[in-house]
């Protein structure tokens, strides 16, 4: 090695090699990060307000009669089916909307809208209903006393109450009797750099997940290009879930 260092020809060649590599890396790297999927956050880091997770759902691509997102969510989150429609939990449901004036009918999935001004967080007496720094609205079931006031306050009927003893919970979705629960935007997947289960399952690609705060993300670029709306936007809750064709 010492011989090479004393030889000016070799050291200049090394410098050129290193320099070329550095320039190549510097040119290509931004492009690679653009194409790469959402990066998993370092587990030791807390969620950051630099991100605001959101969904973009294209109702025009939602197929009539399809409920694959609902099935995927129930499976992912370990939600039971007791055959009791009124009390069984649901994090996501498919709603059919028909305009009585024109007879036009469409359907779209509705889940927790992960609002910027969540009414459920305002009314919770124990701060169990809270908004994580990255915009995901969650129920801290260590603190929830099961008063159901958040369920009264939610304009989207997004929340469910666990009406019976829970068994066979998934490790990533602890749930139990007496607490309120709702869509977590698959926070456990998001933190690991993956898409929510419903988004991953949708056969027509009607659902898109991403960081609304990142102007280069696919979702941000799409909502800038295409007209989107939120459900009950007049209420001022500022949902993180936007719809095309609402």
């Amino acid at each position, binding site marked *: 090695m010492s011989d090479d260092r004393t030889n000016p020809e070799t050291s200049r060649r090394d410098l050129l090699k290193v320099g070329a590599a550095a320039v190549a890396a510097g040119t290509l790297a931004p492009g690679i990060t653009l194409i790469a999927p959402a990066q998993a956050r370092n587990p030791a880091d807390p969620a950051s307000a630099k991100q605001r997770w959101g969904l973009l759902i294209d109702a025009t691509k939602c197929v009539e009669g399809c409920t694959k997102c609902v099935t995927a969510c129930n499976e992912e989150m370990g939600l039971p089916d007791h055959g009791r429609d009124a009390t069984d939990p649901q994090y996501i449901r498919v709603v059919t909307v028909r305009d009585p004036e024109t007879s036009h009918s469409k359907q779209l999935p509705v889940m927790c809208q992960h609002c910027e001004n969540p009414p459920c967080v305002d009314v919770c007496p*124990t701060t169990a209903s809270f908004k994580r720094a990255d915009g995901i609205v969650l129920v801290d079931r260590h603190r929830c006393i099961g008063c159901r006031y958040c*369920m009264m306050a939610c304009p989207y009927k997004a929340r469910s109450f666990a009406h*019976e003893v829970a068994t066979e919970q998934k490790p990533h979705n602890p749930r139990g009797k007496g607490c309120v629960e709702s869509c977590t935007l698959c926070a456990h997947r998001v933190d690991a750099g993956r898409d929510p289960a419903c988004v991953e399952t949708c056969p027509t690609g009607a659902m898109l997940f991403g960081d609304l705060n990142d102007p280069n993300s696919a979702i941000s670029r799409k909502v800038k290009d295409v007209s989107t709306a939120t459900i009950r936007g007049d209420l001022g809750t500022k949902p993180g879930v936007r719809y095309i064709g609402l």
Partner: protein
Amino acid sequence: MAAHSKSRIVYRALDAKSSGYWGLIAAFGLMALIGGGAAYTMEHAGHWITGMNNHVVWGTPHVFAVFLIVAASGALNVASVSSVFGKDMYKPLARLSGLLALALLAGGLAALLLDLGRPDRLLVTMTNINPTSIFSWNVILYSGFFAIVAGYLWTMMDRRGSGYYMPAALGAFVWRLILTTGTGSIFGFLVAREAYDAAIMAPLFIAMSLAFGQAVFMLVVLAAYTWADRPLGDVVLTRLQRLTGIMVAATAYFLAVQHITGIYAAEHRAYEAWLLAGGSVYTSIFWLLGVGIGIVVPLVLLLHPQMGGNRVAIVGASIAVQIGGLAHIYVIIIGGQAFPLVLFPGMEVSSARFDGVVAPYAPTLPEVLLGIGGVGVALLLLTIAVGALRFLPESLADEVVDPDHVPAAKDAAPKDGADASHEAVPAPAE
């Protein structure tokens, strides 16, 4: 008049050795126990055994609980009127008024808190407070109510406390108004629901509290004095009767304003049409029980000139107000939730989860028993207290309550003629 009327009132605990008294304790105790059993069953199996679900999340226990809590605030009115508003005639009843307020609140909270999904975590409401949540505020207001009214009672019952009487009275009065406003705001603050989202719910609840609370109060006074065989004159009873009638009228006023405004506003019209004319069970409950029995009947029985002092009328009106009160709270809480949440205004919506349709709800036995259990707790506490301590005046005969009272011209002797100390009637006062 203030000085000598106060010194002549003798308070005596109810005879706690009579079989009637122990019968009441047993009956109310049994009600409370059954309510506790219902709560245990609901907590053990989970709420699926009740009629409450993901769409109507608050049911019959909450109806009873809110009724009791609202009545508790109003029951304090007699004490407030006697102190803050200086009507000495009501002073003998001030102690019972404070006690009834505490008992009703305790019963209401018992029903409410035992229905929580996780009642074992109640303390979390004290350790984690959310300043934007009216529920959190209510935790402070309800706990504070116990403390303030207990202190108020102390200033009335213990000579050492009499110096603090007026500040305590004023504090209790103000606190009670804030508390009832807070209870009404539980619903008034909910923007998403068509039935709520109205600032008028706060004053509506205040009017309801005065009507319900005084109705319960009159019933308790009549029951206690009749069963304990103590003299009860007509003067204070008639005044209470009229006052309660006015409160029922005030409730009717606020209800009318709320619903007429709702009909006027296109945004709320669908809900009003469904409730007032939709033909559902809620329509019947509102008109027959809420308005008919709860407002029209009491107005006649309480305010009609010929009903003054008629004890049957008073008992009937009290019961009618309470039935009507429960009906109104039922319509507000359950009707307000049953009406479908509007996600897409103007659209017809359907889903596998009751979107676009009136949500199903029917009261079930555990819920009703829990609600009744709350009533039992309230009455049990009341009965124990009046038998143990000096809450009830020995006599509420007219001369005792109002020494300047002139009996009706044709009567030579006082109406009840019991052991009232008879003073020579002075020249007509005022």
